[in-house]
């Protein structure tokens, strides 16, 4: 039997038995819709974890100086220019991005009343700016002691969206980056509770330069030696690579400050280097080489991301299994329906055999009907599940209060989720219909035609 003949025959039979099949497919629709719903939710949460909360970079590792240990003779090397050169020579390393801590404390005095009124006026004309924010900004007073570090601009070139991230000309504001996580925490909790404007893509370009005093401390003067260095900083973007509890400047700016305030050695000592591999497959050998050179690896974020990701995967898997159990029960119902249909159509099967159908043809007819039931049930289930995802997504975004890392979308919509839903439905229907189709194919045509 050709495929087109099979298709025509299956179509005719489906129309004839559509009521039976619709009832049989209800379980498939319910199971697949919940399958799609839970996969979508798991995928969405996984996306938030891996891109917003603990962003992972598959081809990068973070190298840190290893703490001195008594049983480790190779330990204790600092990261300096020589070490950076060694990292660059490791086979498979594509790039080395050093990171340097600003070796002196800094303070920032943010006093709203000192902000140029013209700046305030300019911000007030921005769309979406609330008047109460401007009042809060004018009344804002905050004196912070903050940490700072310097980062290779190449690592964050995509993150500096609102200005160049490089060592500025003398007298110009220093471009800084803030941690995305820090900004998220500020926006979703501190800013909301104090009625302050959020730090977002709309406002960042209009934020005024803020004063920063390097080599200054509110806490202790012990680390402060020499004159204070008054500077201005301007926010040019947010980055996952930026310091979580401070500000990140261009590497060269920090190097110059360290050289001026702490000497040449401080200007050539890095607290971390990000190594980028040519491919993720090379990471293991690079890690081994780094350890052999006497350095350590900072895998804390990766471990955290993996742990959270594992929990999300586990919960998603649990719900997906429940969905599959529903689909499995539906497959049993499909099997029952097919047994019933085959019992009703014994003579018809005999007739088909009499006019030339092989056993394989008979089996193909019933499996073809199962594919059609599974396909239609799967499409309906996937559509229902996707609709539920969209509806719950919209409701969650609208109704849930703001919280840190609240995503724009709670659900993921990978293409394979819908295709997988339909494929699972077809698979389970075929599995359910297989035993009945075997029985149908094995019927003796002579006895079915004579009713024996």
């Amino acid at each position, binding site marked *: 039997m*050709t495929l087109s003949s099979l298709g025509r025959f299956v179509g005719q039979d489906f129309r004839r038995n559509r009521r039976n099949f619709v009832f049989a497919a209800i379980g498939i629709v319910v199971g697949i819709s919940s399958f799609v719903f839970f996969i979508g939710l798991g995928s969405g949460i996984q996306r938030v974890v891996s891109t917003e909360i603990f962003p992972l970079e598959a081809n990068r590792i973070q190298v840190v100086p290893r703490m001195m240990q008594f049983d480790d003779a190779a330990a204790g090397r600092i990261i300096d220019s020589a070490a950076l050169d060694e990292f660059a020579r490791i086979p498979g390393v594509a790039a080395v991005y050093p990171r340097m801590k600003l070796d002196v404390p800094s303070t920032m005095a943010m006093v709203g009343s000192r902000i140029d009124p013209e700046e305030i006026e300019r911000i007030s004309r921005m769309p979406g700016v609330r008047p109460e924010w401007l009042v809060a900004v004018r009344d804002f007073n905050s004196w912070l002691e903050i940490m700072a570090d310097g980062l290779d601009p190449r690592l964050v070139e995509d993150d500096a969206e609102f200005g160049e991230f490089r060592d500025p000309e003398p007298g110009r504001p220093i471009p800084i980056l803030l941690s995305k996580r820090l900004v998220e925490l500020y926006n979703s909790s501190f800013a909301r509770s104090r009625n302050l404007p959020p730090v977002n893509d709309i406002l960042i370009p209009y934020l005024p330069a803020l004063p920063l005093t390097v080599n200054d401390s509110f806490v202790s003067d012990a680390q402060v030696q020499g004159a204070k260095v008054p500077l201005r900083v301007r926010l040019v973007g947010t980055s996952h690579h930026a310091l979580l509890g401070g500000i990140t400047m261009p590497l060269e700016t920090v190097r110059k400050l360290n050289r001026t305030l702490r000497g040449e050695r401080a200007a050539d000592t890095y607290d971390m280097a990000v190594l980028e591999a040519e491919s993720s497959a090379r990471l293991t050998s690079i890690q081994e080489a780094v350890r052999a050179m006497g350095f350590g690896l900072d895998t804390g974020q990766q471990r955290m991301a993996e742990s959270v990701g594992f929990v999300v995967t586990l919960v998603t898997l649990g719900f997906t299994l429940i969905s599959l159990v529903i689909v499995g029960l539906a497959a049993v119902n499909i099997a029952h329906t097919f047994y019933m249909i085959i019992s009703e159509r014994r003579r*018809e099967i005999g007739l*088909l055999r*009499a006019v030339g*159908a092989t056993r394989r043809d008979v089996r193909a007819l019933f499996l073809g009907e199962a594919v059609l039931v599974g396909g239609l049930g799967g499409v309906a289930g996937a559509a229902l599940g996707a609709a539920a995802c969209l509806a719950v997504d919209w409701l969650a975004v609208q109704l849930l209060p703001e919280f840190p890392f609240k995503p724009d979308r709670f659900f993921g919509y990978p293409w394979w989720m819908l295709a997988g839903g339909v494929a699972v439905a077809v698979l389970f229907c075929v599995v359910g219909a297989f035993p009945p189709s075997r029985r149908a194919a094995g019927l003796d*045509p002579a006895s079915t035609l004579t009713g024996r």
Partner: protein
Amino acid sequence: MSFPPSARKTKPPGASAGGAAVIQLKKVSRVYGSGEGATHALRDVTLDIEAGGFIKIVGTSGSGKTTLLNIIGGLDTSYDGRAVVAGRDLRTLSDRALSRFRNRAVGFVFQHFHLLDHLDALQNVALASFFSGWKEDPRERAEEVLVRVGLKDKLRQLPGQLSGGQKQRVAIARALYNRPALILADEPTGNLDTRTSGQIIGFFELLNREDGITVVAVTHEEHLFRKATRGVRLEDGRIVEVGKA
């Protein structure tokens, strides 16, 4: 039925009357069940049927007529002995080859018509086309044979809209669809009135005479098949008479 004495005396039961045998059965036996409950439907049946013949098989209920027909048509292969039909030793054929044999070489006509209620006359007749893989337009051929059996104006009628005689003519058209050399009819007039039965039998005679199709018909109503070229009588699964009808 009255068989010529010469046929019974000069030839053993079942031997060919002459010409190329399209059906050759040698010591065919069929037993249903096993042990003490076994039923011997056929016992050592030997029969040759020549091409172009019109054979009627008669006998009482349970004498093995339908079993014999099922074996000849390749619907039943659980027999002992040898059955060669249209040059094929049926029991040695694979399921695929046997199905192809049923599709191309044989046309079946049943007492209860066995039409599919959800298909119209054209679709019922073209049923074999699903399994033949022919390039020929199935609707065209189906229409051709339906016109031949006198149902030109019933092409789109469902079986429920047809009389018994019309249903049986649709069934005959279905049997003719793939131009078989052999038609096997199992009590084709069993559900019809006398007048309609006469028309159906007349049609079988026409197919046999004009198209040279070998017709083997099982019947209780042997008096209706007056023009059969041979008759075979079965009793308790044995051939007890073979001869000119």
